[in-house]
């Protein structure tokens, strides 16, 4: 009995089928892209990551040439960290939750993997989403607490309000909403970030913190950042973002809420200025 392992063996008996992977590869910034294919055996419960792991251990292309392991980014493997986002069969999503039995149910089916196109490629499927984290600074996505000393509880909040904030707070900075957005463009140069369209996720984060009892202290600064170039006015309301968000965050609702708050803020400023 000591030989029993904590994981059951893969379903025995069934012959293992093969899925064909077409992967867009690139050796580094400024290098040309190329396609490589791999035939990957598919045990039960396979997903795109387990297939990439198999390729890493067996880096030989479908036509028998030795190659290098494919590079990709991942961490949690349960669709909660956002790291492994890529374009799979033309659609942006997390690769760890992409089950092969759903995406490629038959022997010999093809799965195509590409890096996201709105962020600079580091290597192969790994892209640099630093711009998304910079955007969180731009909208001051934090609660300005008085420090970490013991000062009692935070503001009381009803269950409805906390459930709304919880939903917004599930954003894992994955970038699907940017990849799908017609207004969001690749911008490799950090100097351009401040004036390019910021995308749906940080707008929704601004709403999250504006809705918090203490967070709202920075509301007018957040709105100011979103009223300038690259802010809320650049959104064309195409609603692609909300359709691809894996966490089903109500992005268009957030964009609407921030739009209205920005209008009120503009009026307020106009009359205060007089």
């Amino acid at each position, binding site marked *: 009995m000591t030989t029993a*392992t*904590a994981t059951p063996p893969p379903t025995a008996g069934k012959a293992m089928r093969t899925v064909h992977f077409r992967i867009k590869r690139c050796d580094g910034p400024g290098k040309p892209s190329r396609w490589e294919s791999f035939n990957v055996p598919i045990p039960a419960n396979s997903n795109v990551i*387990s297939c990439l792991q198999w390729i*890493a251990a067996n880096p030989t292309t479908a036509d028998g040439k030795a190659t290098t*392991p494919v590079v990709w980014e991942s961490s949690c*493997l349960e669709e909660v*960290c956002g790291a492994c986002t890529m374009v799979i069969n033309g659609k942006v999503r997390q690769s760890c939750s992409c089950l092969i039995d759903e995406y490629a149910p038959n022997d010999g089916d093809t799965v195509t993997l590409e890096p996201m196109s709105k962020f600079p490629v580091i290597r192969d499927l790994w892209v640099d989403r630093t711009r998304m984290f910079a955007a969180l*600074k731009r909208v001051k996505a*934090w609660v300005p607490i008085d420090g970490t000393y013991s000062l009692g509880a935070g503001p009381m909040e009803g269950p409805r309000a906390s459930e709304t904030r919880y939903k917004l707070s599930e954003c894992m900075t994955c970038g699907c909403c940017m990849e799908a957005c017609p207004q969001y463009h690749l911008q490799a140069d950090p100097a351009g970030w401040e004036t390019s369209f910021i995308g749906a996720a940080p707008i929704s984060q601004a709403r999250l913190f504006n809705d918090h009892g203490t967070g709202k202290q920075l509301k007018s600064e957040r709105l100011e950042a979103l009223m300038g170039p690259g802010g809320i006015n650049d959104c064309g309301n195409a609603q692609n973002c909300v359709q691809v968000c894996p966490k089903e965050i109500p992005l268009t609702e957030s964009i609407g809420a921030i739009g209205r708050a920005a209008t009120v803020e503009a009026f307020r400023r106009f009359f205060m200025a007089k």
Partner: protein
Amino acid sequence: MAEQRVIVVGGGLAGLAASVRIAEAGVPVDLFSMCPVKRSHSVCAQGGINACNEVARQQGYSEYQHFDETIYGGDYLADQAPVLEMANWAPRIIDLLDRMGVPFNRTNEGRRDLRLFGGSLFKRTHFAGATTGQQLLYALDEQTRRHEDDGKITKYEWWEFLWPVLEGEGSDARCVGIVAQDMRTMQIRAFRGAAVVMATGGNGLIFGQSTNSVICTGGAASRCYQAGAWYGNAEMIQVHPTAIPGADKCRLMSESARGEGGRVWVPRKAGDARTPKSIPDAERWYFLEERYPKYGNLVPRDIATREIFDVCVNEKMGVGGGNMVYLDLTHKDPDYLTRKLGGIMDIYEKFAGDDPRFTPMKIFPAVHYTMGGMWTTYAPGSYTPATPHGEHKPGMVPPVDTEVGRGMAYGDPRNMSTNIPGLYAFGEVNFAYHGATRLGANALLSCIFDGLFCGVGVVNHVNDAGIKPVEDVPQSVYDAVVRQEEAKCERLIASAGTGDGPAHNAYIIGKEMGEVMTSASTVVKTEKGLENCLGKLDELRNRYANVSLSDTATWTNQALSYARAVGDMLVLAEAIAKAGLLRKESRGSHYRTDYQDRDDENFWRASVSRFNPQTGKADVSFEEVKAGLVEPRARTYGKQANEDKSENKQEVAASAS
């Protein structure tokens, strides 16, 4: 004195809490992580975080009882004073997280909601849906970003820690910085730091498939151990009872599923082929409820894991004859489940294909948490009872008031320092709080507590005028470590194309290590099994000496980083298996079929592994546990023989509401 900086390695809860606390005290922080910190493993935590609270308090609970449960849960292997201090701080930590904006679940009146968790009869677990870790990590990530915006924290994301820089030899050594590598450019460089805080998490990947993130290799801890830091209770590895087995990892079904009423069962008839819903209640075997009427499905993890293992492997009663039992929530209202457990309901549906609101989940145990870790010390606080107490029962007056500062001395630079001055270990990477088993929802607490409480000690260490400033350490000390690490990389790159296929493939070596460690060094251990395991590890190390890389790129070479980690994991695996072999007793998660009882006489001691550079292996000794506050008692959780099952049921129902 020039500006003193602190290096924090790791951007999970422990590393971020430390960074925020240290930066707030005015000391600049350089923060290193192998991933953007917001994607750290802490994001996976589901169920919640424990703290005494007003409702539980009025039902007879107290910080002291939280402490008592943690010590009992850990089977008395943890030093007691730090645990007391942590339990005392827990309510303030929840308040602080609340102020940071964590969207904790709320009651109608707008107060923080609570749930039941393993190892306690009181509701003392605070939660944000079923993604509590994500929400806590984000709150700390936001505060970190705020300090980054002020210029007090500098992030080095996608940088891998390679080795600590030590000045001096043997017991005179102190830590003065680190050497790290940019995972994109592959540049290797040294960083000076007046103190280094390791907050690099657990080592689940040593066991192959686990519930951990892919970064949790234990590589960083192993490197510190090889450089001379001691490693405590290596053999104490938690196997979580309820996970979904997968091809790449085992996805956790949080204990909160049982906390919210989930029941574990198998059909009474072995191999019963009916669908679970069509099996009537009388023909289901709720084995945990039957064997543990007091705690039922909420016995601690090691116990639930062993019972599931026993039912499947020994009694061959698993679902469909396989290694699988049902975890059933279908008797609960689907909307309630969505509200309280939405995150994990989605995970199950996504990865297993069935909706657990309507179909019982199929689960099996998986490696989950590293109780052991880098050995750390502390400065005791003022609370020292004349004689240790017995069991703390609900409603008893705590023998200590709930003032902060009773277990550990606040601000003392020794708190959670390793044996190497200047080198600290916070969070899952240390061995301090959870003894031989961690109770659910205590890990997030210990991580944040370390950062906030022990972070102050780091600041005091850095400000100690009696210590030679790091800017006076000769550059040659740093250069030597940089050269050592560059040489390792060059050797690995040069290995490409050599070697004998699978035998020298790092991925295959890693896989074989995971298999042997899981089968010999987790749920059930024996002398023979562990000896074989050590033999296999020797074989793997020999093969690893000729490991051959499949990628020679000098840009973003992940194969190199992984292969290097496998070498370090093999070293740590040896300590884990050896300490398990030498601990000839059963305690908490460590269960030896050849020594089934706890042996306080010989083994109420922490195992301490010291790396021997001559042999490349662990010298293991057993050292005194600093107890003194509570007396050990048998850890049975009221296990019943087959008769007189329903003792306590009434009492429990009344006190646990």
